[in-house]
């Protein structure tokens, strides 16, 4: 029992930098939902059930623009498809767990939870992962709520650059990860492809960029070993 609690707390504490980063992002989603006319309840329900920031932001924008059901769903699939890679990377660790654990950790498997499991140096622990994922889920929903409340009170809250929090924190996590030339190549290629896709307004850009970065990293790795 004692070690369960300890692991839950350790997961929560390790997640703090990512929670700090997601607060402004959640506030942005909450404020945007209210500003777009979707309403407080529906905006909060998106955070409670979909639990995917980028998908939520894009969907709110598309609903406001009057897009159809199918096009919003296809866009969601394109944006969310990168998560398949995380389930693949964590497959050997999680597939051996019972169904309720797989379901819970699958639901909580965000970019942030995945990144946290990758930079953690201890062996995989389900309670640790649950602590990290659950604290992040709670933070996401509370910050959405703050955004809903603040967005109703403060106009133009969505225009003050809250998204920079993601940039700052992701860079702080990324820099120590770059330990070899193959990882550096991966980062440069992934960045370049994502920027190109963004200028072409491609919804699948995120997945393409990630795949290109991974292949570039692997190619550099094998090329260096052949020398």
């Amino acid at each position, binding site marked *: 029992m004692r070690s369960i609690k300890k692991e839950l707390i350790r997961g929560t504490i390790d997640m703090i930098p990512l929670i700090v980063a997601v607060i402004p992002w959640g506030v942005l989603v909450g404020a945007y939902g209210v500003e777009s006319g979707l309403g407080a309840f529906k905006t909060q329900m998106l955070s409670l059930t979909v639990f*995917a920031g980028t998908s939520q932001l894009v969907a709110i924008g598309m609903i406001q623009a009057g897009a159809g059901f199918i096009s919003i769903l296809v866009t969601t699939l394109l944006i969310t498809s990168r998560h398949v890679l*995380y389930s693949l990377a964590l497959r050997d660790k999680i597939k051996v767990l019972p169904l309720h654990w797989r379901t819970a950790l699958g639901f909580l498997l965000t970019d942030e939870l995945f990144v946290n499991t990758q930079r953690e140096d201890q062996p995989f622990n389900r309670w640790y992962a649950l602590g990290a994922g659950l604290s992040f889920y709670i933070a996401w929903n509370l910050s959405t709520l703050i955004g809903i409340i603040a967005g109703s009170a403060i106009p133009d809250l969505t225009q003050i650059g809250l998204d920079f929090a993601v940039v700052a924190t992701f860079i702080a996590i990324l820099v120590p990860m770059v330990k070899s030339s193959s990882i550096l190549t991966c980062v440069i290629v992934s960045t370049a492809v994502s920027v190109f896709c963004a200028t072409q307004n491609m919804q699948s850009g995120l997945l393409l960029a990630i795949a290109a*970065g991974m292949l570039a990293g692997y190619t550099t790795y094998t090329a260096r070993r052949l020398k």
Partner: protein
Amino acid sequence: MNFWLLITGMAVAVFISRYLFLEPRLPLKLNDKALRILSYSAPAVLAAVIGPLVFTTEGQLNTDPANPYLLGAVLAVILMKFTGNTLLTAIISMVVFMLIR
């Protein structure tokens, strides 16, 4: 359009993409090559998410040195290199970003 049908569809789509390969009945064995490729996924994800935020403004490439996102990002890289502290780097660069934008 029915919002509740949409939100259900979105939740299911996101959940399936996150759960897919956690399912043991899916016949798939990862070899060393696949695991090596997958080891690059975390840095690739982080770079792909921040790339467009830093280098584009409303869908246009923006490498103007006065772009506050670009300046803030450069500051964050430098801070992290020198301090090695995640939280400190994130907070200082956020504050500086808010001041210069």
